[in-house]
């Protein structure tokens, strides 16, 4: 009993610690521009208003950035997960020369500081005509998320007993059918984990988003936020920014809640002897 009470208190403390900034942004987003800039902060808005949301939503640039963000993140996630699934399967199941090299290079790429690549990429993309385009952002997102996705997925594939595939082959499946009908469904938790990680990276990225774009043709939301302006140069658009932040946070929360159900541990239980 006592441990349960202790657990409860601990949980509440951690939740407060984590969620207080979110709550602060939420309350800020309901304050009017003037109130947020007034300089005497109180937690609850004196005069709650939805004006800020209206302003953000009606901002054509923000709408465009939202589309960019969704499009780029979804494409990067899809491509990355498909490629990572195939690569991870090969790494987990096949013996080929250079397997260790592939894995170590993948890890090295994941550890590379993002900022150090911005300069060279900027130059390359200008030459190649990829600057300020969707592919110009999708490619770097993929190259940074693929290694993590490959490592995650190959760990999942290794957990799946070989016999599953062999059984499928004896039952009359081609290698591809065995992969698609048996292995991929069993690795689904891994696939979703990889998808979430990739989507987060792409959705939250600011460095590439601000450096490799110049117009709303490809600029994602986090970068677009930097272009918000207040009523005049002495009044920062704090509450509008807060409203925009809430609007980009909500999709992430929804996606995580949706995918969370798919990440059921122990999906392979029952495959083999009990």
């Amino acid at each position: 009993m006592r441990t349960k009470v202790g657990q409860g208190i601990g949980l509440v403390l951690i939740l407060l610690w984590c969620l207080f900034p979110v709550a602060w942004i939420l309350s800020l987003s309901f304050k009017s521009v003037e109130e947020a800039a007034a300089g005497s902060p109180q937690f609850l808005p004196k005069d709650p208003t939805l004006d800020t949301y209206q302003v953000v939503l009606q901002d054509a640039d923000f709408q465009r950035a939202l589309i960019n963000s969704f499009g780029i993140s979804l494409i990067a996630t899809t491509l990355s997960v498909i490629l990572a699934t195939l690569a991870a399967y090969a790494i987990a199941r096949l013996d080929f020369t250079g397997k260790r090299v592939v894995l170590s290079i993948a890890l090295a790429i994941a550890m590379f500081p993002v900022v150090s690549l911005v300069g060279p990429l900027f130059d390359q993309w200008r030459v190649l005509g990829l600057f300020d385009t969707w592919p110009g952002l999708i490619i770097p997102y993929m190259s940074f998320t693929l290694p993590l996705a490959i490592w995650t997925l190959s760990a999942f594939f290794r957990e799946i007993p070989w016999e599953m595939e062999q059984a499928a082959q004896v039952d009359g499946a081609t290698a591809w059918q065995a992969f698609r009908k048996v292995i991929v469904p069993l690795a689904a938790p891994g696939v979703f984990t990889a998808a979430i990680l990739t989507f987060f990276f792409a959705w939250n990225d600011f460095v590439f988003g601000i450096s490799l774009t110049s117009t709303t043709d490809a600029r994602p939301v986090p970068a677009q936020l930097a272009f918000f302006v207040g009523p005049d140069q002495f009044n920062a658009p704090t509450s509008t920014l807060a409203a925009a932040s809430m609007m980009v946070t909500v999709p992430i929360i929804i996606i995580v809640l949706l995918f969370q159900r798919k990440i059921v541990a122990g999906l392979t239980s029952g495959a083999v002897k009990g």
Partner: protein
Amino acid sequence: MAAIEMKNIVKQYGDGFAAVNDVSIDVADGEFVILVGPSGCGKSTLLRMIVGLEDITSGDMIIGGERVNDMAPRDRDLAMVFQNYALYPHLTVYENIAFPLRLAKNFSESEIDEKVRTASATLELDEHLDRKPGNLSGGQRQRVAMGRAIVRDAKAFLFDEPLSNLDAKLRGQMRTEISRLQRRLGITTVYVTHDQTEAMTLGDRVAVLRRGFMEQLATPRELYENPVNLFVAGFIGSPPMNFLPATVEGDMVELPFGRVKIPAEKAARAKGRGLLIAGIRPEHFEDASVMDRATVAEGSTFRAHVDVTEWLGDQQYAYIPFEAPPEVQAQLTQLERDLDGESIRTQLVVSLDSASRVPEGEEIELYVNAAKMHLFDPSTGDNLTVTSPHEETSAHSSSTSSSSSGASVAR
């Protein structure tokens, strides 16, 4: 359904290790053949070569008259039950059983349904069809794995130690079930096991393997009564055959416990060979005090000191330690190692009538039916007293087993 012919099958791994050496087995259409041997004898490898999960280094694998060496598993049309069942955990029992049919693509939905329901009725899985394998017991999973195998009319069934993950009681039940199923469907079956009880009870014929070589291919009765060498003699039978140092003089055999008379024909075969190993099964001994005088007088008796007894209700075992000379000891230790066992001491195991009241730690008079004694050459391990010559013997003599067929099966 089809016959499976294995001709001089060899499996050699990259490091030169030969897991299977020149094994030839003919499995007739509808026959139930067991591959048995201690771990590492190559039995599972051989089975996996039949189904196509393992490449064949040399030799011919012929299924239904067609050489399948280079065919993919799915083109061989065989059904296999894996040791760990390998059920698809994301599919229901129904879909697990239907899986091979859906892949075949030439069945309509109603045909699939009919076949699945027939298979599930056979295996009494009807009430579990909508459940996932994760929620089933070990025995139920085993039946689902069988269901997946029987649902399509494959050319043959292959079993890879299907019962080894079940508890003893369930294993006995499933053994009978598999036997009944195979008899009813009349389908060619190859069954791998390390359990000699399964081998003896299920098989029309049994192939005993050791370290990649086939030692003997024969009916269970033939294996039991006429093992071709020490290994087969020691492997088949529980408790195992007793091996004792022996020397033959005339028609008398000198054993550690005394001299016994053997048939003249057997004595003649072992003449002048010096020190031999005598093999006598536990049930060929008896407590002389519970037998009638006339029978005892016909055989030989000796007195021995009983160390421990085990009373099991229907019978009892008595253990009698003895010292073996070093020449024989070396061979017996090696044999024990081949059989996955560990010899702690040389001892005689005798099976006595359960009515016998043998006091532990005392000397009793034991009767031995010496006519059933086998004599083995200690250096080669060959049985010198095989009574009926048979063509389907050992792989060492590289005899082909072409003359054997389902017709020779006497069960």
